[in-house]
C-alpha cells in the first residue's frame, strides 16, 4: 500500500525530488504514504456514506451534492495538510531534522512546501474518488439516489 500510494504521489503528481531524498525515504519507511493515501480514500468514503445513507433529507438538490463535495474536499485538504505537516516537519527522524535545520541544504523550504502539495493532490484525488463513490453509492441509496443527477 505504501508503494501504491507513494507511486501515485511520485509519478502522477511528481511530488518527488531526489535532492530531498530523506523526506521521501522518511515518508516511505514510517507509513506516511499510507496515512496520506488513506485520507483521500477513507474520508470521502465516510462522507459519502453519511450523505447517501444517513442524511434523511428528501428535498436534496444538486447544490446540496456540490456543497457536500466541496466540504469533503475541504476536509481531505485540511487532514492531508495536517498529516503531511506532522509527518515531515514534526518527525523524530534525526537525519531529516538536521537536514531541515541546515539552511544551506534547502530542505527547510522544500519541506515547508510539501504539505500544500500533498493537500492539493489529495483534494483532487478526493474529488475524483468522491465522484466515483457517489455514482456507486447512489445505486443503493433510498433517499439521495437522484444525486448528483
Amino acid at each position, binding site marked *: 500500500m505504501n508503494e501504491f500510494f507513494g507511486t501515485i504521489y511520485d509519478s502522477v503528481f511528481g511530488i518527488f525530488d531526489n535532492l530531498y531524498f530523506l523526506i521521501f525515504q522518511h515518508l516511505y519507511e514510517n507509513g506516511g504514504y499510507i496515512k496520506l493515501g488513506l485520507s483521500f480514500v477513507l474520508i470521502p468514503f465516510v462522507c459519502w456514506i453519511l450523505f447517501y445513507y444517513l442524511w434523511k433529507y*428528501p428535498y436534496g438538490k444538486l447544490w446540496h451534492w456540490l456543497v457536500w463535495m466541496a466540504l469533503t474536499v475541504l476536509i481531505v485538504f485540511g487532514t492531508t495538510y495536517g498529516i503531511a505537516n506532522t509527518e515531515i516537519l514534526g518527525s523524530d527522524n534525526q537525519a531529516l531534522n538536521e537536514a531541515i535545520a541546515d539552511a544551506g541544504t534547502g530542505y527547510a523550504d522544500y519541506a515547508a512546501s510539501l504539505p500544500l502539495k500533498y493537500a492539493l493532490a489529495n483534494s483532487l484525488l478526493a474529488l475524483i474518488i468522491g465522484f466515483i463513490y457517489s455514482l456507486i453509492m*447512489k445505486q443503493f441509496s*433510498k433517499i439521495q*439516489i437522484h444525486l448528483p*443527477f
Partner: protein
Amino acid sequence: MSRKLYIFAIGGTGTRVLKALTMLFASGVKTGNGFDTVIPIIIDPDTGNGDLNRTKDILRLYQEIRNQVELPDDFYAQEIRTINEITVNTPAVNPDYFQFKLKNTDTNTFNQYIGFDSLSEDISEIDDKNFVRLLYSAQNLRSNLDVGFKGNPNMGSIILNQFTNSEDFKKFGQTFGDDDAIFIVNSIFGGTGAAGFPLLLKNFRGNTNITNHIKIRVAPIGGITYLPYFSLTRNEEVNAETFEEKAKIAIDYYNRTIISLNQINTLYFIGNRGNTNQEEYAVGGQEQRNKAHFLEMAGALAILDFCKNINSVPQTTQIKEFGIEHDTQNISFTDLNIENAKQLSAPLTKFHLYTEYLNKGLSRSLNTARWTKSNIKLVRGNKQSLLDRNYFNSAEYNTQIKSFNNYFEEWIKEMKENKPVFSPFEEITADNALEIVKGQTPKGDKSFKALDIQNCLLTDNISIRNKEKKHTMLIKMFGRSTDRVLSKRNLLIR
C-alpha cells in the same frame, strides 16, 4: 368465501350515508367477514337531487380510481360495483347504474301517476275519486314526482311499489348468491325513505317472483333507520316540525309489521333529539344538498357492525342504537367509544393526511424528492418513480384523484360545520402537518418531511409498483407511508 353486500340506500339520507361509507372505504375501512363486494343501490325518484348526484359522482370516482390500483390493500381496498357490472361482467364505470330507475316519475304529477286525472266526476267514478281525496291532499295530488315525495310516505309507498317490477330489481335477484346479505338505509321522518323501507323488506321476505327468492327470503337483512337529526331553515311544503310526529307514527308501524314479525335480523336506530342544526330549505332537486353530518358516518359504522356480526345474527329482530362515550357537541375520536375510535381514527387520519399532503405538501417535493423523479441517471428502471411530474399533470390524476380528494375534504369540512360538530382534526400547514390530530402534538419535526422520507423509502418497493394501473403507486405508497409516520408518533388509536 366470496360474499356480496347489497346496500339499499333510500332517499336523501340513504344517499348521504352511502357517501359516508364510500369515504370510509376510500380511507381503507373494509367490511370484513368475506364481503369482498359492496353493491350500493340508490332508490330515489328525485333524480336531480344535489346529494344524489354528488354521491353518484363520488361512487364513480371511487370506482375509476380503484380500477387503476392493482390489488388495493389499504386505501380503496373495498370493492364497490353496480349490479349491472356484475350481470354483464364489465369493468366499465357508469354511475347511473348505482341508482334504480323509477318509471314515469320524471314528468308526471302524482295525480297523473295514479290515474286520478283520468277518473271522471261521473257518478260511477266520483266515489273512487273522493276516496283518493281522503288519502291525499290536493297538494299531494299536484306534486311533481321528479323531486321525490317531499316528506309524504303515503305517496312514496305507491310510487315505490313499481320498483320491484323493474329490470334493475330483476338483476338484483339474478345476482344474489348464497352468502350474500342485504342492508337498507332509510330515514323515518321523510317521504321516500320512510315509505321505501317496509316495502323493500316485504318484497325481500315474501316476493316469490324474484329470481333466487328462496335465498333472498332467508338472507341476513340489516337496516338503519334515521330518526330526526336535522331541521330546516323554513317550514313550508316540507315541514320539519312534523318530523318527530311522523317518526313516532312510522316507528309504531315498523314495530307492528317489521320488528314484531322478525322481518329483519338487525335494525339500527339513530337520531339526535333536540338537534339544533338546520339545513337550507329545499323540497328536493339540485337545491337539496345537505351538509354531511356525523350521524351519517355513524350510519356507515352500523353497516360495518352488521357485516362484522353477520355470522351471529339472531333470527329474532335485534335492535341496536348508536351512542358516543362523552356527551359533547364537539366530537373528536376520543369522544367515541373505543371500538368506533379504533375503526375511524387510523383510516380517516391517514387519508386526511394524504389529501392534505397532495394539496399543501406536493409542491415542495415534486421533481425534487426521489419519489417524484423518473429521470434519475445511471440507475435501473425499477428504481425510477412512476409518480413523476407527468403523472401529477395527467388527466387521470386531476380528474379522478384530485376530484375525489376534494370531495373527501368537503365531507370532513361539512361534518365540522354541522351540529354536533365532528372535528377530530386541526387545520394544518406544510410546516405543522403532523399536528393534524386534535389535542396531539408530536415531538420533533412536524412538517411533511417525514412523509416524504417514507415515500422515498418505499419508491422501489416492488409491491406498490404497477405501470399498467396508473394510481397503484400513489394509493399504495400513501397507504403505507401515512401509516408509518402516524403510527411512529402514536397519533392513531389502535
